[in-house]
Every structure is written in structure tokens, then in C-alpha cells.
């Protein structure tokens, strides 16, 4: 008995050790889809011979890890789902200045000295086509009686992109739209996936401000769901790529950024229904040029983050 326990422990130990031994040339933390980073890593390794080790989680969980690791950081390249982290990290002096030659076709508002977008998602209305509700065209349509008790709003406190949209729309009419949504029975429902799932099953009719690429992906799988981008405008969520200044593999990291912005890399991005950051890469979905964007001062909004979240939580009670 004791012997077999010993055997088990050693067996388990050696398996774990081997899992740790695989040495990576660069380490990438990404808040993007696992399938995308897997393909990017594979393509990059095939092309350059440099290995890529990946940690994938939500932006929040990645930040917790980086914060806890701060004394002895491991990450070389960070792909966040929120541009705000790029601004914040730059302010802290954590980022390497680098402009990839492949970033030439990336529009100016999607890049700066220390960060460049890998892809872009936009926020829209995710609408269940079989829900028996009329196809919405505008944000305000979701405050109409046809959508009574049928609208989910992703929690702006949990989803960075939902916060941007909430703040931008609230700034236009001083929260009037959100008050009428509340009066119509709309609720704040967890992060993005939690808000979308009930709409897929039909418990709810629409998500107010869904991340579009996940919804497009579900549509492609045959779900009766569609994305509506209101004429009055929406916001986009660029996904910044950054190289951390503590990285000991900055040359390799730069090559990886180049690869992500290459034709091949950008086509992989488009394959996940994200908008490619480069304007010359086609995608099977509406692109930035097809969307009307709300004009708002992102920096000012971030400064008032606490206040805006408080207002929303006052309106919707609960949280």
C-alpha cells in the first residue's frame, strides 16, 4: 500500500515536473480568445522557431497575476481586452516603446508609442431572432414595451467594454436612457458570457451592449442570434498589445508583435470575427468604417469611473 502510494506520488511529480520543463522563449498573457492565441503561437513558432508560452484569462485575472508577480515578473507580451490598461501601464513606465513596421496600415487611433491594437471589437445589440420581439434598430428600442423584462445589460463594473458604452451613452442624455431601461425591467446581468447565455436560450430577448465577436461566432454556429449596430452610434473596444519593459526577450517579443500584425496574423484575427487592426485586411463582418462611433472623451470618462458606476448601481438598485 505504502509502496503504491509512493509510486503514485513520484508518477504525479514527474508528470508535473515535465509540464514545467518545457522552456518558452517568450511568455504571452492574453485576454483574447484561446483559439486565436493558440493559432498565432503555432504560426509564429513555425515561422520563427521561437516558442510561445501562453496564459489566457480575463483582463481582470491577468492584472491580478501581474500585480502579484510584480516583484519578479514573468510576462513579455500582454494582450489586454481594454485600452485603459495600455494607458495605465504606460503611465507607470512599464512599457517598451516600439512601432512595428507592420503597423503602418493600422489607423492612428489604434496605436501609440507603446501599444498597438491586435484587433477590435465593437459593442452592439445581441438579439435573439426567434424571441418574438421586433428587430431592434436603436439602443432606445430596448426601452420599448416589446422588450419589457427581456433585456440584459453586461455589468459595467465587470466588463471594461460595457463600461465604455455605458459611460458614452450616459454622457449623451445624463442617464435618461438607462432610467427608462430600468423602468422597462432591464437588468444588469454578470459579465459578457453571463449576459448572453439567457438570450441564446430565449429567457431574454436582447443584450444591450454585447461584445460583437462572440455573438458573431455563435451566429456562425447556427444560433438564432444576430448583432445590431445602432445608427446613432456605438463604441469600439480595441485590444492593445504591449511589450513589458522587464522582458528579457524584447527582440523576440517585437518579432511576435510583427507577426500578429502581418497579413497572416491579421487573417487569424479576422477568423475569430474580431475586426483586424489593419484597415487593409478584409473580414467577414462589419468593419470600423461601417460603424458610426459615438464621440466622447475616453480619458475624462475613466477619471469619473467610480462616479459613473455608482450612478448606474443607484439606478439599477441591486448591485
Amino acid at each position: 500500500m505504502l509502496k503504491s502510494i509512493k509510486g503514485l506520488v513520484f508518477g504525479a511529480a514527474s508528470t508535473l515536473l515535465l509540464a514545467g520543463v518545457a522552456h518558452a522563449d517568450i511568455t504571452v498573457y492574453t485576454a483574447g480568445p484561446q483559439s486565436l492565441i493558440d493559432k498565432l503561437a503555432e504560426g509564429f513558432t513555425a515561422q520563427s522557431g521561437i516558442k510561445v508560452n501562453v496564459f489566457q484569462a480575463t483582463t481582470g485575472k491577468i492584472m491580478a497575476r501581474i500585480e502579484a508577480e510584480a516583484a519578479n515578473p514573468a510576462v513579455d507580451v500582454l494582450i489586454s481586452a481594454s485600452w485603459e490598461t495600455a494607458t495605465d501601464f504606460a503611465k507607470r513606465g512599464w512599457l517598451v516603446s516600439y512601432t512595428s513596421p507592420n503597423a503602418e496600415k493600422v489607423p492612428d487611433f489604434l496605436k501609440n508609442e507603446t501599444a498597438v491594437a491586435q484587433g477590435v471589437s465593437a459593442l452592439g445589440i445581441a438579439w435573439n431572432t426567434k424571441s418574438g420581439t421586433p428587430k431592434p434598430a436603436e439602443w432606445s428600442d430596448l426601452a420599448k414595451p416589446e422588450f419589457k423584462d427581456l433585456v440584459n445589460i453586461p455589468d459595467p463594473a465587470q466588463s471594461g467594454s460595457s463600461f465604455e458604452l455605458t459611460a458614452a451613452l450616459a454622457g449623451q442624455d445624463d442617464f435618461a436612457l438607462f432610467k427608462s431601461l430600468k423602468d422597462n425591467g432591464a437588468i444588469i446581468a454578470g459579465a459578457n458570457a453571463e449576459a448572453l447565455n439567457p438570450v441564446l436560450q430565449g429567457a431574454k430577448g436582447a443584450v444591450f451592449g454585447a461584445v460583437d465577436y462572440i455573438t458573431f461566432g455563435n451566429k456562425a454556429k447556427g444560433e438564432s442570434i444576430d448583432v445590431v449596430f445602432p445608427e446613432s452610434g456605438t463604441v469600439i473596444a480595441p485590444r492593445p498589445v504591449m511589450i513589458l519593459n522587464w522582458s528579457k526577450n524584447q527582440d523576440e517579443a517585437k518579432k511576435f508583435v510583427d507577426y500578429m500584425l502581418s497579413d497572416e496574423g491579421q487573417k487569424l484575427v479576422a477568423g475569430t470575427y474580431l475586426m483586424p487592426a489593419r484597415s487593409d485586411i478584409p473580414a467577414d463582418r462589419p468593419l470600423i468604417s461601417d460603424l458610426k462611433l459615438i464621440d466622447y472623451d475616453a480619458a475624462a470618462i475613466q477619471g469619473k469611473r467610480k462616479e459613473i458606476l455608482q450612478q448606474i448601481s443607484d439606478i439599477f438598485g441591486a448591485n
Partner: protein
Amino acid sequence: MSAKDIGGVAPAAWLALSGLVVVVAVPFAAIVLQAIFPELGAGSFARPFSLLSQTLGDVRLLRMTGNTVLLGLCVVIASALLAIPLGVARALYRIPLAPVWDVLLLVPFMIPPYIATLGWIMTLQPRGYMEQLFGFNLTPVLFSLFGMTLVMTFNTFPVVYFAVSRTVEAIGLRYSDVGRVFGATPARAFWRITLPLSAPGLAASLLLVFAAAIEEYGTPAALGRRAGFEVLVTGIDTRVGDWPIDLPGAATLSLVLVIMSLAAFLLQRWILTRRSYQTVGGKPQNAEKRELGRLTIPVMLMFGIVAFLSTGVPMLAILGTALSGTISGGLAFDNLTLRHFADVFGNSAGALGALTNSLTLGLATAVLTGLIGVVAAYVVVKTRIRGRALIDIMTVLPNALPGIVVAVGLILAWNMPGLPFTPYNTGFILLLAYCCILLPQTARYATAAFLQIGDNLEAAARVAGASGAVAFRRILLPLVFPSLASAMLLVFALASRELVASIVVAPVGMQTISTFIWRQFEQGSVGLGMAMAFVTIILTTLLPLLFLMLLRRGGLVRE
């Protein structure tokens, strides 16, 4: 004569202590330091205590703490109400199909809470499975304290059921029969003799339920937020997951949780130290069980209903979703597909690697926590070594540490620059995290089991010439092994599906079952996630059962 001060004890104490220091004390110290020194992550001890008062002075803290206690108590009471009648019936009467009920009541424990909650939501919400089948829904019930209590109780009551049925079975009818001889009614004999004697197992299991309830993340996050019911764990998660990260605040809130769990632990200890519970004083008796008689139908109904609600509903919801081509297609014949299962076994998105990783980790965790747990329990219960109270407390500390906080503590501790060796960024960091989170399971059950074993057994062995080590291995270990083995099997199941710590601390490039499922949900592939969940639940239920069967055949565990 007592077996306390004879040789052979000191090495055991040292083994337990060093295991506990690595597994519990190191991450816990890091958390305490983080609460005090806000810039610890960056390796700086600047501005001590500067953020402590800010966190503790937050008005919401009182509400979150109150909600946490309330939820914990509700789940404990509901679990006791559900599990004690079933457990007692199972222990004292001959129940038709008893092994089948045991398996069915074991399954809910194998269902990851966040999956069970999602299953319940998809069943009860408007146009959910229940409405698709029967034309009505029960949404209002779900998103409330009542709904949370129900879902969490279905998940945790097996702990109490198995503890009660095993301890009451071990006590058997001998003692209450003595009471009957002296004129007690059956009810009186039960209330005055059987139930009090099974207190160690009952109290230990209720403590575990309380700790699990105040530490649980998935259900309060999915159901409680909508009901406006914020608990400490969701508050901690907001601090850790919401930029800018507030690690010191999260650490402080965790310490509040730890204090609550310790208070519950001290209460349990106080109950247990008031008298002796030794019922195993000689060679085992043959357990005689009574016939159910007129009670057959009501008892069978009780088992049936509880098994259906706790195992049937969530499992059917999981299977239904896993077999659906699309969610919006609903329960329709043309929407039926095996694609998601084919994807799991076709290693889509690394599913098989995740399974292997988690099962290996689960096994290693069960073995390690079993070893440390049994030695620590022995030292605490059967020796008079100074400092054994400290060992006892260390085995219960992690009870209240939320997974995410253990993860942060481990990173803080093991990622310091200049360490000659670090488990960080290898699979060992997950092993450490799981051992820390799950150690209380084995330690509590082993402690309860040791409390029921009379000192005379060990003493007799020593008198007959056995060394301390031999007496431990040949007399005590076999007697506690049934309890320990079932605790280790629970640890295996829990470790192979641990979510919150895994997400943060998993080494780069390594997936576990839970992070795999969670990623599928995040990216909108609910079907694939549910297929993986179904495979996992079946595996984590069948593997331990197979193992138990082998042990029985080998004569290591009595029937």
C-alpha cells in the same frame, strides 16, 4: 497508561508540521503581510497599515459580512434538515437499493457548483428546459436567498449525509439498545444516545458545509448579484478582478472570512471537548440493521425526491445542453448532436490534456492531503505534544481562504526574487494551491475518526510490545482508514474541478478541467463546456468508486 509520551510521536509531529508550513503557513503569511503592506507585490514594505482602515471602514463590509454569515447558516441548516434523516435512515435500517442511493447522493458533490448553478438557471429561467417541457418557469425562486440556499445545499448536503450515515453506522444500535433495555422509547434513545454520540462526525461535516458555503464563489456570483446579495467572496473577487487591482483590500476581506471560519471551528471544538465520544473500544461489532416496515414507502420517496432534485435535475440540464447543437434550438430532436462529445474526445482546444492534468493533480492532492491530514489529526488527538493546538488551527485555516486569495498568496510567496527553487509557473503551484484549499477535508475527517477511537486500543498494542509506529500503522490507521479514504476521494473530486485558484495561478500553457470549461463558457461555447463537465462528473464519480471497490476486495476497507 496513555500512549502520549512514548517515542515515535515526535517524527510524526515534525512531518505534519513541515507539511503544514509549506502548504498553509507560507501562503497565509503572504496574505497577512499583503493586508499590512500594500506594496508587497512589488517587494516593498512601504506604507504599512495605510489601507487597512480604509477597507475595514467601508460601510458595505458590514453588509457583506452579515450576508455571508446568513448564507452560511441557511446552507448549514438546510443541509442538516435534508441530510440527517436520510443519513440516519441509511445507517440504522435496511434500505432497498442502498448502494444505488449512495452513488446518486454522491454525484451532486462531484458537480462543480458553478456548473450546477448554470444548469439550474438553464432549467428554471423563462424558456428554459422546464418551460420547454412543462410550460412554466420558476425564475423568481431562483434569484433569491432561497434559491441560492437551495442550489448550494443540493451541492453540499452529501458531506453531511455520508458523515452521518457512517458515524451513526459505526455507533450502531448497541448503545441505543442499552437505552431501550432501561426503558427509553426508540425516539428518546435516538435523541439522547445515538445522535449525541455521532456529534463528532456531524459537527465536522456541518463545519465543512459552513466553510464551503462562505467560501463558495460560483453560486453567489451567478444568483446573488442579481438578487442584490453581495457576500465577502464576491467583494474579494471584485477587488482582485477589477482594475485597478486592490490586493491589500482583498487580503483584508479574506482575513475577515478566516476569522469567521475560525469562530465556527472553535464552536465545533467546544462542542466536541465537552465529553468523550469514544465508541470504538474493542473489536468491531457486526452492525445489525432493522427492517423499514411501514416506513418503506415514505423513506423511499424521500430518497427519490432528494436524489432527483440534487442529481437528476442538474445532470439532465448538463446533458441536455451538451447534446444540443445550439442553445437557441432548444430540446428538439433535430437539434440533437454528439458533436460536443466528439470534440472533447477529439482533443478539441486541448480537452484531453486538461483532463489528464486535472486527474493527475487530483490524485496527487488526495495522497498528499491524506498523509498530512492523518498525521496532523493523530498528533492533535492522540498526543500531548506542545503546540498541537497550533497544528490543529493550521489544518482549519485554509477552510475560509477563498481560492483566489490562496492563489494570490502563493504567487506573492513563491515568486519572490532570489529563491533557489520555485514551484511557480510549474504544475506544482497548482498542487500547492489544491493541497492548501483541501487539506481541511482530510484533516477534519481524520480528527473526527480519531476522536471515536479509545486510547486503550493503542495502549494494549504497546503493552503487547508494538512500537509507536507499528501501533499507529497496524491499529489506528486501519480504524480511521475508511473515513480517511472517503475524505481523500472527496479531495480527489474537488481538486480535479477547482476553478477560482486555477484560473489565476495555472502555469503558462497548462489547462485544467475547470479552466477549460470556464474558457468555453467565456467564449460562448456552452455546449462544449457542458460536454466536458459531463465527462468530468462521470469520471470523478466512477474512478473513486472503482478505487473503493478495489480497496474492499483487498480487505483494506470494511463493507
